[in-house]
């Protein structure tokens, strides 16, 4: 290895690495052992966003990554700083989000001595990351950082943590350019088996009732265009999972909404009744499949995924294809085009019949969009946000009822617009994720849709949003409950509402005012459209607290462990006594 460039300290070497990786902005919180790093940062052109809690640094980095498809970077000090990152790392792990987390560690010679703010970050984050590193000396820093970026962003993406002792930040060294990355055990399968792809194409043309089940991999793999081409080429009905919304535009006529626990009736019936399920970049999550034995029970399954460990994990596919979903779809679409003249006419009648069944399901049980005269229904709120967004805005969500209604009712015409904590279901995600997304895409209208529970978990970030004057539209869907838990207590625990009532919520106008921006509370349906428009027009941040019907439940709902075609479509009908 050739040494080049001037003598620097480890902190500057790290900044050089970050800059070379194209990092323009990252989220962090300084502390004792990262002092040398923050000192070097003082002279750097890389923007640092000082969040108000390290967990939110990771969530914000996720917002950055999820809204751009680039690697998000966060930074924390040793001990509590590092442990506070863990929820965010696991969140990124569950949703396969490329994140680099940099943590400071106590000086090498103090490691293991229970030094002040020491924690075994390397050990704690091992199962929370795709991979993690502990840097031993400044010479290996460039190699490790570039390897970390490569691991985070290639294959099935994920979070990678680099733990750096204080003395490594201080040590004198050089930035050594890294020409190659050699990780002999890191196998990335991208191309897909040509024979399997051909067989898949044949099955797709032969199927009478094919159905596309697109997952988060189609967003992560930037395969939106190829997915759309596939759907149009064969005129396939397609669902996008919670992680994939926008990958096929919600406005596309072939889009059959979201499947799963709170998915649409047509999506779940389509999954159940199809004879060929084309699963793309997805992991057959329990919230999608419901009871596995009943899931897609008549169907043969084509499963494309970049992670060999996902293929056959929950459902054994008839045609497994391990590869990058974009590459595989490019090849698949090519073969499908070749086979088109031979096969297309054959299934025309059965395909038409299949489409008419799907259209019937869609009309029989559309999503509930009912409105009330003197209350704001949550669905009404989402409809209005959808109207203002027109499928163009970035929408982040927390976890719970509002997340499901937003996923059902707000359209996303592109990938990277819908940002939520899918796998981990981490409350408090929405606000910091919006912060990261708005930093990454300043031109975009960003809504942070929060529940009154999740919002109160990340209130500190109002300060960060205010100090950067980020024009985020924070919409609190306030029902005074931890709504989703309340819904389960109502439906499955005899309505014994235990520890779910949030009886105190700050005055939104005063709260926002305290941070120096505008806020408002509304509770009448006729205020809604105007209030949202006002929020959007406001050049700075805006906090809109929307008091909605308190006891509304999200439907359709597949009870836990149930088959997805056995949905509860609405509230139990009152028993009429004759």
């Amino acid at each position, binding site marked *: 290895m050739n040494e080049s460039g*001037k003598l*620097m300290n480890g902190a500057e070497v790290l900044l050089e690495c970050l800059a070379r990786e194209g990092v323009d902005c990252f989220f962090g919180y300084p502390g004792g052992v990262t002092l040398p790093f923050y000192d070097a940062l003082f002279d750097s052109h890389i923007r640092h966003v000082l969040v108000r809690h390290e967990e939110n640094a990771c969530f914000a980095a996720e917002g950055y990554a999820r809204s751009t498809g680039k690697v998000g970077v966060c930074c924390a000090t040793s001990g509590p700083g590092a442990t506070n990152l863990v929820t965010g790392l696991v969140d990124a792990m569950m949703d396969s989000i490329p994140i680099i987390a940099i943590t400071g560690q106590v000086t090498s010679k103090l490691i293991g001595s229970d030094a002040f703010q020491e924690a075994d970050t390397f050990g704690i984050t091992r199962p929370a990351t795709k991979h993690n590193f502990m840097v031993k000396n400044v010479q290996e820093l460039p190699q490790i950082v570039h390897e970390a970026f490569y691991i985070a962003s290639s294959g099935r993406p994920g979070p990678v943590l680099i733990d750096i002792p204080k003395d490594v930040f201080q040590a004198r060294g050089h930035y050594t350019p890294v020409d190659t990355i050699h990780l002999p*055990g890191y196998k990335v399968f991208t191309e897909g088996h040509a024979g399997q792809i051909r067989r898949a194409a044949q099955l797709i043309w032969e199927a009478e009732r094919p159905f596309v089940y697109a997952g988060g991999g189609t967003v992560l793999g930037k395969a939106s265009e190829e997915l759309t081409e596939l759907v149009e080429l064969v005129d396939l009905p397609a669902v996008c999972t919670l992680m994939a919304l926008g990958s096929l535009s919600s406005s596309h006529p072939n889009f059959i909404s979201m499947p799963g626990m709170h998915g649409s009736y047509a999506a779940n019936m389509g999954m159940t009744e199809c004879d060929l399920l084309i699963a793309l970049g997805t992991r057959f999550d329990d919230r999608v499949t419901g009871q596995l034995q009943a899931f897609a029970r008549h169907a043969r399954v084509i499963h494309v995924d970049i992670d060999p460990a996902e293929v056959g994990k929950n459902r054994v596919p008839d045609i497994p294809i391990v590869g990058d979903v974009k590459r595989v779809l490019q090849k698949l679409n090519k073969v499908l085009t070749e086979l088109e003249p031979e096969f297309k006419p054959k299934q025309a009648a059965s395909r038409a019949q299949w489409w008419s069944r799907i259209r019937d399901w869609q009309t029989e049980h559309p999503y509930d969009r009912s409105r009330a005269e003197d209350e704001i229904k949550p669905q009404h709120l989402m409809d209005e946000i959808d109207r203002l967004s027109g499928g163009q805005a970035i929408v982040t969500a927390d976890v719970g009822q509002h997340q499901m209604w937003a996923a059902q009712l707000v359209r996303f015409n592109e990938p990277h617009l819908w940002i939520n904590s899918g796998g981990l279901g981490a409350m408090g995600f929405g606000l910091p994720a919006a912060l990261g997304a708005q930093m990454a895409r300043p031109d975009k209208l960003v809504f942070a849709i929060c529940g009154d529970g999740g919002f109160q978990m990340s209130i500190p970030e109002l300060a960060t949003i205010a100090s950067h004057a980020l024009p985020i539209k924070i919409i609190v869907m306030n029902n005074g409950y931890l709504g989703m838990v309340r819904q389960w207590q109502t439906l499955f625990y005899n309505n014994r509402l235990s520890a779910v009532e949030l009886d105190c919520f700050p005055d939104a106008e005063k709260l926002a005012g305290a941070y120096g921006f505008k806020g408002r509370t509304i509770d009448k349906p006729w205020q809604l459209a105007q209030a949202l428009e006002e929020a959007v027009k406001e050049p700075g941040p805006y906090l809109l607290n929307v008091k909605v019907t308190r006891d509304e439940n999200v439907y359709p709902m597949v009870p836990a462990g149930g088959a997805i075609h056995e949905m509860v479509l609405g509230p139990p009908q009152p028993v009429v006594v004759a």
Partner: protein
Amino acid sequence: MQTISILLENKPGALLRVTGVLSARGYNIESLTVAKTLDPQLSRMTIVVDVEERIRTQVVKQINKLINVLQATDLTDSPAVIREMVLVRVRCHQESRTTVLKEAEIFHSRVVDSSTEGFAIEATGDPEKLDEFIEVMRSYGEIDVARSGAIAMSLESKKLRLQPPVAAPATTPAFTEPRL
């Protein structure tokens, strides 16, 4: 019991990553051995577990996914030699000493220490054979046992597929101004 053979990088934390895949799923490790290979940068690890097949397949896939792991192979249903070593200290009466030595010979084991109290004996063999050996020794008196855990060698020539080096993404220097 099933045997998984793993070739991994000889790096701090690599062992924990592998065992973590099992412990995260609540599975116990029956035995584990690990040592350097001919290439000192690599280690060979043999893990014996009791995990049903479907989950074992998943576990092996997850282990294979680890960055530090070059190859993980389930040897349960493939031809392999599996051997283990045991050290047994047996305290026996004066009159049974000759019989103990006879038994040791039957198991092709070696006496590594002898005293008035008894013997220390070293035996190798497949793990079931060693179970029998230990049972036999126990019948002569009080024993102490230390087992090495199984080591395994596949008899199939399975090609090791390694990721070749990739070119690092082209980057542009960040700082042109002298900074110190």
